[in-house]
């Protein structure tokens, strides 16, 4: 069965490298948390931490879950669900004033 997944999957060595990247990103997140506690980075703290989390999120989905090597059908279903949920709860939290309160 010559599906794309059997052709392009990363090697174990690449998986280890990805794990190192994920560990470093986590360490950077924690470092930012402590820097913000002592020096108050303001909104920059929120933006940075969310960006780092998004990066880790995409790396795990793309490489460990192999979504970037899968058929586009799966990609569409999965990202569709994520976008739907994100949009729904962003609207709800904005309507309830949570996002504005936390951003301010």
């Amino acid at each position, binding site marked *: 069965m010559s599906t794309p997944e*059997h052709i392009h*999957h990363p*090697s*174990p060595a690449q*998986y*280890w490298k*990805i*794990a190192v990247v*994920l*560990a470093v990103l*986590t360490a950077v*997140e*924690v470092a*930012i*948390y*402590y820097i913000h506690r002592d020096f108050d980075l303001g909104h920059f*703290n*929120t933006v940075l*931490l*969310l960006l*780092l*989390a998004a990066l*880790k*999120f995409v790396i*795990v*989905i793309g*490489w*460990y*879950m192999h979504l970037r090597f*899968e*058929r586009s*059908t*799966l990609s569409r*279903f*999965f990202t*569709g*669900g*994520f976008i*739907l*949920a*994100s949009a*729904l*709860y962003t609207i*709800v*939290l904005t309507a*309830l004033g*949570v996002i504005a*309160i*936390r951003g301010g």
Partner: protein
Amino acid sequence: MTELTHEASLEHAHPEHEGTGVENRKLGMWLFLSSEFLFFGALISNYLLYSNRAGFPGVYPSEIYDIPFTSVSSFVLLMSSLTMVLAHNAQTRQDVNGTRTWLFATAALGSIFLGGQVFEFTEFIVNFDMKLSTNPAASAFYVLTGFHGTHVAIGVIMLLSLWGISRRRGGLSDRQGLNLELVGLYWHFVDIIWIVIFTVVYLLSVPPV
């Protein structure tokens, strides 16, 4: 071995991928995981709604988080994604021992994470008197992290089941190999949900003013 051959012949007789070009069970798992975004999204939103809403009695979760401890737990869960993908990789290479070793390592790391969560909950309840009903923030915290922990526990049970089957039958058949892939998808999903929880709930939470 005979059972493996029999199952392989059944797979040829009943191909499971239909018009989409994707195995039905695999498509089902991706759809299930996609729907889980709505489930965890609701719980995270609930936490955000109450986490810093002042006026309730008792201690708030954001006042007592142990960030170094949770960071280690997060690292453990993140590394379990590595061992999971290595188990899947070993299975695709027909490396029976490798598959078993990495499956067990993943289950062990998941169990360590769960142990950490039990320790954290115990600390919060015993030392800080923050119970499920103390205030809405505490309630939202326990429900969110508790449901995530339940997902991890279910994952550990599935991993150990596959490990047991592999030991008993001397390896996993193609069909069971697909099961391993599906459990892997579930496991990585649990990991990405924790990535969000760790950032949004632990690192970005601010105590009420």
